[in-house]
């Protein structure tokens, strides 16, 4: 088994502040963390490795500081870590990001075939949830999104069964390898790194790939050039000004108050009134 886990280093949104004067986001001094969703996918991958053996490789595309995020993943038990970093990647949107990552994963596969790729459902800074599906499409892999748990994996028949959270319930899905899974949050708990893995992480020599090492030839597909998305405007939404209404009745009796409230609700929402009448009939 060879599993690749895609992780992204993101600013700890809990600690981001808005500059009170300029109203811009102050990123300086905000600690960087591993995108929280990605830790659930790393843990799920490590559990598969615990059962079936094999290798877990983590990969990120980002600036040199992203090294810290990769090292953290090594401390949790990942075997290898690759930092894909190049000025040419700057300004990438999800199209360009998934292209670069898919190409880099194909490069990893040259060393050892990749059976599964794990992504987080989404990031806490970009929130698009597009990168995982983008990679799967480009690599022609089966795609399982919103996964809450990997139930089983059969290496001989090369099939995997997962639980997928969907509207109205949980779907149990089976597919064949290779496949890409995007994990939901809160589905497992990251292990506490052992002392040996802490030492290994502190001393680990990261693999750093630039564009060429990652196997990317077409520069028009990466970075700003490969990014058709344009962010035309960023604004903070206006707070809704819905005022509370104080309901009163002549007598002030609880029963009268309740009746006044119900008649107000029914006047504003006729459908609700009809439904209630139908139900009671």
């Amino acid at each position, binding site marked *: 088994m060879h599993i690749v886990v895609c992780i992204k280093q993101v600013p700890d949104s809990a600690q981001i*502040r808005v500059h*009170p*004067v300029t109203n811009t986001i102050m990123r300086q*001094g905000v*600690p960087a963390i591993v995108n929280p969703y990605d830790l659930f996918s790393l843990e799920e991958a490590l559990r598969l490795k615990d059962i079936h053996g094999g290798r877990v490789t983590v990969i990120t595309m980002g600036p040199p500081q992203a090294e810290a995020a990769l090292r953290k993943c090594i401390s949790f038990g990942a075997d290898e870590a690759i930092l894909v970093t190049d000025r040419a990647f700057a300004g990438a949107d999800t199209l360009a990001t998934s292209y670069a990552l898919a190409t880099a994963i194909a490069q990893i596969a040259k060393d050892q075939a990749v059976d599964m790729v794990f992504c987080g459902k989404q990031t806490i800074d970009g929130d698009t949830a597009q990168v995982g599906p983008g990679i799967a499409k480009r690599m022609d892999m089966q795609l399982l999104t919103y996964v809450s748990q990997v139930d089983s994996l059969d290496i001989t028949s090369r099939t995997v069964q997962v639980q997928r959270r969907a509207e109205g319930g949980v779907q149990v899905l089976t597919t064949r390898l290779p496949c890409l899974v995007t994990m939901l949050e809160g589905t497992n708990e990251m292990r*506490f*790194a*052992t*002392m*040996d893995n*802490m*030492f290994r992480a*502190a*001393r680990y020599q990261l693999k750093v790939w630039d564009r060429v090492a990652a196997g990317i030839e077409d520069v028009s597909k990466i970075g700003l050039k490969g990014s058709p998305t344009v962010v035309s405007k960023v604004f903070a939404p206006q707070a809704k000004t819905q005022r509370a209404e104080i309901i009163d009745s002549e007598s002030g009796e609880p029963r009268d108050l309740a009746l006044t409230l119900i008649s107000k609700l029914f006047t504003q929402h006729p459908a609700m009134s009809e439904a209630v009448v139908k139900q009671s009939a």
Partner: protein
Amino acid sequence: MAEKFDAIVVGAGPSGNAAAYTLAKSGLKVLQLERGEYPGSKNVQGAILYSDALERIIPDFREDAPLERHIIEQRMWVLDDESFVGTHYRSDEFNKPPYNRYTIIRAQFDKWFSQKAQEAGALLLCETTVSDLIMDGDRVVGVQTDRLGGSVHADIVILADGVNSVLARKAGFRPELNPGDVALAVKEIHFMPEETIQSRFNISGESGVVIEMVGKITKGMMGTGFLYTNKESLTIGVGCMLSDFKKQKVSPNQLLEEMKNHPSIKPLIEGGEMKEYAAHLIPEGGYKAIPQIYGEGWMIVGDSGMFVNAVHREGSNLAMTTGRIAAETIIELAEKQKPFSARNLAAYREKLDASFVMKDLKKYRNMPGIFHRNPQFFTTYPELVNQAAHTMIKVDGIDKKTKEREIRNSFTHRRSLFGLMGDAFKMWRAFE
């Protein structure tokens, strides 16, 4: 299977970083363990950095250390409820490099210092708490951490784990903390635009101002308040003896809230946005509270050894100096291939005795006791001094001679002549 190092340093505050840096630079194999998410993540300080102590470790620290403002003006305020009497000392000498004192933000500073220690070769593991010392008879031979497979061995273990030092207490190297020997301090960082700070404090560029305060802000408890200027923020805080908080049943943040509303302080911090709130203990027992600081295979540095000069608000510099001198002692022994026995490590204490660290602490050894027994220094006197200033300055048709008599009477009325002379003598003894 446990790894073996020459030295293990517990903690990545100023004392631990000074020790780890000095040891690693000399080529020793050093492991540093820090329980916080990153160095400085849990650490609290005012914070004023005294250049001298750091210069002796990293002479060119100014090139890349995260420094806020160099201090050119020191204000000392004695506060009453409505007013303050103060001295301001400002000198252009302090505005010429190399600067003597800086304000810093510890989270950033500790990260930088730790980075230097790592570059020098120390191996740092964060989010790793040392839970016990590993003993071989009466010798410390390593540490046990909270992680699976977490024991690590070393020839010497340096405890740089701060004022609480659970480890030193557990091992019996130090007694339980006495509430009369520690202060509890709270502080806040308020964000404020650079230009506002500059105009409010009459400074330009990266120069800064420090205000130290005593008086009724501490409600009769032994303690002080402070307000420091950073690049784009102000630090404001107050600290009192833990035993006093217990006795007076005042909460520290209530004290800080009231201090922020003092009519002389409020306009200085107005419009700021609170960014951070922190509380921490400060060891203030002084010379008499210093425990045994070395033994078979172990040493104690920094706050863990109670090395704080409360009178001059010096702590981080003593932490760095004790860390450096501990490391130098180890290096000398290692060079001569001598074991790290209590007998050989006694050189550490001797070096400290000969340095400013012990000399200063010894000078003020009676201070904590005197202030403990005489709360009038924090209540009656600030009030009287402020009243005197008010009486002299107010123009109201009363002749100056009568005013002088009034002031004199107010002092002897509140505190007998005998008491006044006694207090003067006590102060002289404390500072002698």
